[in-house]
């Protein structure tokens, strides 16, 4: 153990018999890829089935549901799963009202539905979710960005939640939600909330259409765009909408996925909003919670051609290990996903054609995404959830399909990506219509697993069975002056020749939440030379010579300050 004030959690190693079985089966089995994701859904006990509330009328909202959240709600060290569900839309008849579902991770890939006990079975129309300890009481709370009134659940710390929407003032009217992010915009130690809104919809304004006689969901541009909302945490359990004062309300868009990141490395957290059918927003924070929209100047509003995309989900991470956060954006069919490489000085370049980061995405509608180092080699790979939004897509174009396989792009370490979906295990052969995706170490074995929410179907749970045995380290932050989860804090890990950075996000991907504890793949490096944590507010803790293959909990102010 190191000199740091951090707790260490031991991990179960894979059972020897399993390893041996794998070794013996190598000669008979097809050649294994460097990353293997195994479909564990049937074994998990998860029976959740998503519904989009549709009845054939093709309300546009049906297409965008929903995200999911991966977080440890009961603080037992296991990552639990919270699925959002769509409620019945107008004139849709249901026997049992669909609701969101919380599944407790009992270990060994078994999950138990604790929705009722926990009191988080919202029956609103779920679209986006963010999780964070908004009240800094040591447990993580849930915010639901719905179509209709939004919901704030406070974690009571005993496995139950309380709906505190009215008290907090976060219902946010009756809008069509999208992604949501908690972040500390003004470095005052509590978490503020950014809420993306998709478009202005009402049943009366519903637009129905056909293309070549086939019923279709209309282009979002048939509905007016709306500005997003920004709420300041007052620190007393209430929030105040400051969208106008903060400079957010002036920008109307068709908001989808969101992520917060200090893209310009100036110590405050900025905001990225993926907009459907229009330019994306990059809100640069001046450090006090005032924002300037700089997407076009930064080169991230449009794709490399200067075209707006049907942007869906977004994640940020340092794919090329140059210390700067890059952004990956998923998009609509016939568009390539985008990888915006951060060039420094607040400038991005869409490099998807240079490095293969959009391989296989052109025929697909792509949604959830994550920069994830699946094989612990120190390079972040990219996972892309796919599936058309039209259940009859094949009729319109036989190169498209409602159900589609997801895509896994392996980072080869030289800044390039290779599509390894075909040889990445049976988990990548699942064909459904995926939406939100989350990534975390569900079995605490030191590699990152995957949970995918599929529209109108059961979810997909993938266990990472990659043969690569790279070392790793996971970092969980505990803020004291800054927010409790360390949201927005930047962590730098140096191991030999490898330098990795990450930051804690609350709300990311396709309207989802995952990755509160940070995961760093280290390859064959057997120790970490240095871990540097820069907290929101400017404090820096540094730890040296740390052992690998474990989870560290780092508490703010406990390391030697820089």
């Amino acid at each position, binding site marked *: 153990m190191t000199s740091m004030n951090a707790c260490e959690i031991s991990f179960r190693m894979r059972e020897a018999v399993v390893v041996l079985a794998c070794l013996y089966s190598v000669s008979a089995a097809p050649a294994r890829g460097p990353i293997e994701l195994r479909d564990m859904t049937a074994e998990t006990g998860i029976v959740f089935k998503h519904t989009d509330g549709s009845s054939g009328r093709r309300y546009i909202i049906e297409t965008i549901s929903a995200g999911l959240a991966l977080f440890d709600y009961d603080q037992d060290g296991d990552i639990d799963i919270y699925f959002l569900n769509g409620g019945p839309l107008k004139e849709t008849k249901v026997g049992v009202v669909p609701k969101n579902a919380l599944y407790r991770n009992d270990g060994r890939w078994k999950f138990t539905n604790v929705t009722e006990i926990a009191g988080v079975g919202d029956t609103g129309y779920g679209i986006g979710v963010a999780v964070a300890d908004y009240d800094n009481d040591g447990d993580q709370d849930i915010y639901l960005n719905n179509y209709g009134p939004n919901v704030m659940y406070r974690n009571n710390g005993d496995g139950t939640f309380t709906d505190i929407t009215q008290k907090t003032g976060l219902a946010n009217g009756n809008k069509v939600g999208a992604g949501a992010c908690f972040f500390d915009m003004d470095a005052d130690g509590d978490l503020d909330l950014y809420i993306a809104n998709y478009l202005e919809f009402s049943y009366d304004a519903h637009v129905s259409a056909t293309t070549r006689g086939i019923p279709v969901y209309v*282009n979002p541009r048939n509905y007016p765009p709306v500005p997003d909302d920004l709420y300041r945490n007052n620190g007393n359990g209430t929030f105040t909408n400051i969208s106008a004062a903060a400079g957010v309300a002036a920008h109307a868009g068709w908001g989808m996925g969101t992520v917060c990141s200090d893209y310009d490395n100036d110590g405050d957290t900025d905001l990225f909003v993926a907009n459907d059918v229009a330019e994306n927003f990059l809100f640069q924070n001046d450090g006090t919670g005032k924002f300037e929209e700089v997407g076009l100047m930064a080169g991230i509003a449009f794709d490399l051609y*200067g075209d707006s995309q049907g942007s869906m989900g977004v994640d940020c991470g340092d794919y090329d290990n140059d210390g700067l956060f890059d952004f990956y954006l998923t998009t609509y069919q016939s568009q390539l996903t985008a990888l915006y490489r951060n060039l420094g000085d607040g*400038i991005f370049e869409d490099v998807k*054609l240079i490095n293969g980061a959009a391989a296989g995405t052109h025929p697909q509608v792509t949604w959830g995404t994550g920069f994830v180092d699946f094989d612990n080699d120190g390079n972040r790979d990219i996972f892309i959830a796919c599936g058309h939004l039209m259940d009859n897509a094949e009729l319109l174009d036989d*190169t498209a399909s409602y159900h589609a396989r997801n895509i896994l792009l392996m980072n080869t370490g030289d800044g390039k990506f290779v599509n390894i979906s075909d040889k990445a295990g049976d988990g990548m052969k699942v064909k459904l219509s995926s939406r939100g995706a989350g990534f975390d170490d569900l079995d605490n074995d030191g590699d990152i697993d995957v949970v995918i929410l599929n529209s109108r179907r059961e979810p997909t749970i993938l266990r990472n069975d990659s043969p690569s045995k790279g070392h790793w380290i996971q970092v969980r932050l505990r803020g004291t002056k800054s927010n409790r989860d360390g949201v927005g804090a930047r962590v730098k890990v140096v191991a030999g020749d490898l330098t990795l950075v990450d930051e804690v996000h609350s709300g990311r991907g396709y309207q989802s939440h995952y990755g509160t504890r940070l995961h760093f793949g280290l390859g064959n490096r057997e120790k970490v030379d240095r871990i540097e944590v820069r907290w929101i507010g400017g404090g820096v803790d540094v730890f040296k010579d740390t052992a690998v293959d474990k989870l560290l909990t780092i508490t703010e102010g406990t390391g030697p300050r820089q």
Partner: protein
Amino acid sequence: MNIHYKFGNSENQETDLPPVDSRFPGRLNVWFLLVGAIVGAGIIIFLVTQNWWNSDENLKSEMQRLQEWESQVGSALPRTIEALKQEEIEVTKQLTDNFPNHVEPIALLGTVYNNQGKTQEAEKCWQRCLSLDPDYANAYDNMGWIAMRRADYEKAVAMWRKVLQIKPRKPGVYQLIANGLLCLGRSSEAIAALKKEIEINPKLYRSYFFLGQEYSHLKEYEKAKQYYEAAMKIEPRFANTYFGLATVCARLGQKDESRQYREKFKELKAQQYEREKNSSEAFDDMASMSEKVSMTNTEIGRFYLEQGNSLRAEQLWQRAAALDPKNTDCRRGLTALYETANRLGEALEIYEQLRNIEPDNAMNYAFIGALNARLERFDAAEEAMKKAVQLAPHRSEGNSMLAQLYLHRNKNLAEARRLAQTAVKLDPSTWNYLVLSEACDKNGDLAGAVSAMEAVVKKEPYNMEYKMMLRRLQERK
């Protein structure tokens, strides 16, 4: 003097049949309609030799079919888009059944399938085209596009390379290859392809744009800027070029220029969004599908005509006209057929439809004038020809026709002469000189008539009839 005017219902009438563009698929060229008699006669001879015009049996059965068809047209339009799509497939399949060894019908069926989202069926058709004609480059081209849609970039590039083997300098193909190569991350090969493209097709602004992008990726910003500027010169309304320019100028530290280009980009992008919004709001699926099926019928009609089956062509073009009240191509085809068959009233009716579709097209008025004149409706003819002159004062046709009308009716002879002079000034063609000669003659200006006829003979020195006409004029001097 005995000029055969292009109107009047006498036996000596020259026909006014427009030539049919033999490209398939293609579009009728309206201005070629003026090239009348010779081509028209040629087509009639062709039709006669094909036994479609004179065979009583054929004529009878075709007439019956036509009558049946006519009873359907307009009253039996499909009520659903599905029925329209079915009709499009059926009519094209019927064509392929009738001409199983012709590439074009099969290729057209492929296009129909592709447009209906059935790419696998489309690909089968194009493969069949290649089995009939291994050098049918369009099949490779189309399969390249489908491969791109499926993200099979290797195949797309291979298909387009096949196109180049057959048509080494086909415009646009190197650019397509470059796009495929870019998706494969093969930047240097893509750059080479793009340079080849602009060598072949120096006006293709997108190739310059893509080159700008590639050099920008390579951080050769000055070079990138040059290519973007070249793209901008060719197509200044393409918003994305300004996006590229704003980016490279920023990288070059040219902040003011970058800002200006960024503003221009925003302006053009806003216009683009507005256009897209308007287009989306105006979209009518039934009308759109009807237009597509109408165009398919038009193309098929053209093919039947090329094969000598004018009655089937007529059926299809009538159907096309019924399906799409704005389809001008099928209507032009019909006017050609009707004029060839001396069905002038029907031709006139179609021209009147064309006039309503294209109220600013002077040629429609010119033809309406000519047909009315042939039907001896001279007041209507005069009105239409005057409108033609008013709409296109810079063109000779209206002036010439109106002059001919006045000469034919022996009225407004001074005006006829002025119009003929204008026509010659605008287009010193043999025909216009002939009209001028006649106009001078009828105005008592024998010297003028001789002078104009000399110009005619000078233009066509081996035409004995013109020489005779000149001699007669000279003898009267």
